[in-house]
């Protein structure tokens, strides 16, 4: 595995024209795409503006900080249920988000704190959802795996279950003809679920604008991809569906790949995109993440492939940002997430009657049964995003 990692490195930075300290725009060469059933691939020469550089760096750093907070809150036993951290994979989400338009949608699995933030939920909305408090984006009712926002159809706790839903969401884009598409994300572990192939097949038959994204972080829950999959080239596993492999540690490569995929699926139908990435933590908080890999391996990735460090070095080298600006972003991200964590701890829980809230629209029985009798009033609270 490590050899493979070194093999695809480095995504050489070639600043074509100007290495000036105060550049506002630079051209960057990204490479390392692999193609399946495609004649041409994503653009390898991409433009990066100063604003974009600041935006992507801020987003990745905030996600990293959010996850650090989440990990701490879990260890403090303030987060209950499950908690899956995205640290190491930030460039995947930020790169894809950068290529999305207003009519595009995304649905993913249970490693979604970062995505939730990228889709417009504030750090407090994310962390309070994790702590099960009122300010959470689902008022604490969904927890770590179930966060939602407009155009974000949520995280999903059942391995692979969100993939056919993504095809369904894509049908709506196709049917409305609004030019939108849906990113349906899953991990390398979920890639072996039967329904993933059902979804590929349906989407291909009906030419639905779906980008099936396999975020390959190398490990399912407790085992490596090689031990779980007969074919670990996940981008080829759509059979008739074209596939695209991208270095998921390079935010600009992911953005370029997603732009290409977006254009492809809205014209031709679905495509499988594999973002080759790495997770630093265990699968969830209950997995130390060291029984199936060495600590040295994790350290090596942190040193050589970290998506945030490598991007920082790149944009400094390109002269798009200064050390001071980087420092200011780091401080701000830390402050913002620290404050959000404090609020998420101090926030109130929703009242007990929410146990019986929003089970149904128009519940037949106004009173529902508690331990003693029909004593609980069913209630409806939010007006849905999709109604």
């Amino acid at each position, binding site marked *: 595995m490590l050899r493979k990692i070194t093999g695809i490195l480095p995504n050489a930075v070639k600043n074509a024209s100007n290495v000036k300290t105060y550049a506002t725009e630079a051209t960057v060469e990204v490479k390392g795409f692999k193609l399946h059933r495609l004649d041409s691939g994503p653009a390898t020469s991409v433009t990066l503006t100063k604003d974009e550089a600041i935006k992507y760096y801020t987003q990745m750093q905030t996600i990293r900080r959010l996850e650090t907070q989440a990990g701490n809150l879990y260890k403090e036993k303030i987060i209950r249920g499950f908690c899956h951290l995205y640290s190491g994979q930030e460039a995947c989400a930020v790169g894809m988000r950068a290529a999305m338009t207003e009519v595009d949608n995304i*649905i993913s699995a249970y490693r979604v704190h970062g995505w939730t933030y990228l889709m417009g939920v504030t750090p407090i909305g994310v962390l309070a959802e994790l702590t099960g408090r009122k300010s*959470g*984006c*689902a*008022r*604490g*009712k*969904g927890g770590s795996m*179930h966060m*939602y*926002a407009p155009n974000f*159809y*949520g995280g*999903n*706790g*059942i391995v692979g*279950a*969100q*993939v*056919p*839903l*993504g*095809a*369904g*969401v*894509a*049908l*709506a884009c196709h*049917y409305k003809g609004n030019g939108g598409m*849906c990113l349906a994300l899953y991990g390398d572990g979920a890639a072996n679920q*039967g*329904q993933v192939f*059902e*979804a590929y*097949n*349906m989407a291909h*038959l*009906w030419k639905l604008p779906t980008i099936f994204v396999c975020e390959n972080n190398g490990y399912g829950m407790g085992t490596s991809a090689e031990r779980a999959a007969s074919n670990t080239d996940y981008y080829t596993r759509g059979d008739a569906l074209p596939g695209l492999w991208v270095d998921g540690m390079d935010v600009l490569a992911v953005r370029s790949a997603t732009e290409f995929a977006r254009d492809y699926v809205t014209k031709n139908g679905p495509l499988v995109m594999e973002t080759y990435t790495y997770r630093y933590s265990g699968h969830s908080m209950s997995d130390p993440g060291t029984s199936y890999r060495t600590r040295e391996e994790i350290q090596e990735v942190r040193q050589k492939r970290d998506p945030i460090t490598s991007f920082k070095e790149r944009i400094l080298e390109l002269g798009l940002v200064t050390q001071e600006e980087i420092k200011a972003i780091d401080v701000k991200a830390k402050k913002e997430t620290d404050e959000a964590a404090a609020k998420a701890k101090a926030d109130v829980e929703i009242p007990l009657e929410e146990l019986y*809230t*929003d*089970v*149904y*629209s*128009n*519940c*037949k*029985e106004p009173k529902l049964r508690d331990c003693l009798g029909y004593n609980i009033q069913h209630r*409806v*609270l*939010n*007006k*849905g*995003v*999709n*109604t």
Partner: protein
Amino acid sequence: MAAIHVITKNLVNLSLKKSTNGAVSVLSVRNHFNYVPDKKSEGKGATKKMNMFQALNNAMDLTLANDDSAVIFGEDVGFGGVFRCTMNLQDKYGKDRVFNTPLCEQGIAGFGIGVANTGATAIAEIQFADYIFPAFDQLVNEAAKYRYRSGNLFDSGSLTVRVPCGAVGHGALYHSQMPEAYFAHTPGLKVAIPRGPQKAKGLLLACIKDKNPCILFEPKTLYRAAVEEVPEEIYESKLGEADILRSGSDITLIGWGTQVHVLLEVADMAKKELGVNAEVIDLVSILPWDKEAVIKSAKKTGRVIVAHEAPLTNGFGAEIAATIQENCFLNLEAPVKRVTGWDTPFPHVFEKFYIPDKYRCFDAIKEVINY
């Protein structure tokens, strides 16, 4: 899978033969019930004679015509479906609105939930209830819980799943089952079962309109055997409300779907042979279910029989019996009796012995009356 399709084909052939050879003679050999048409009309306006698949077809036709977002999909629905429920709909509304899916029930359900998540009207057909289990995860874990777990930000309320189900006389293990009880255990879902064409149309339209994910189990033996006058306009039957089809004072008989017709005949037998006045209730809706009507009737008669095709243990009759003893304990003259399929897989060669036919139900009445 190949075997399944041979069987499916045979079922269709049999059905087709039935219509060309003359319905009555074939039916009398095959069916364990005599269909009793509804007399009262739920909708308003002009009516037309329809069988159950025509009534369902009519409901979907009206939906596609009135709701631009409505789409219908499932195995073979583009050709009309193996039971002809979606006949001509693809011709009329196009391939982008009525389309075939591959054989992938889990994918169909998940896809449908995704469509519904966007607010569109999704009508999925699972070809046989016996095939719904790969979709069980999607329906129970995704459809039912989407609203709750998102704090009502998203839901899959505009999803309706149509599912042909139940005994047909020769369906054997995998073309006969009634899985309503599995789904009744899932808050967030609604489950209903029609007893005939009029109810089927009203319930399907109600399921489509209802803002919760609904499963309509359609007893497939009624598709052709059940014929009655059906209102041509849009109307909705109420989910969660039982129908008292016959009023009586001595004993309450509760069933749903095909079993309702068995119970109506049994009520006649009880009147004639035993002088017993039976009240017959079609529960109609399994989740939510009409506790009020059941409790009221049980308090009046003091004797209750619940009959369903599904096996005894954990069948929905168990929930009804528990609720009755909880609410009507002092009114009961006898324990609540369940007449059901046995706790075996649905048998290939013993179907006649397996189903709760009129003789078993009649015997149960004698037992309960003489308790």
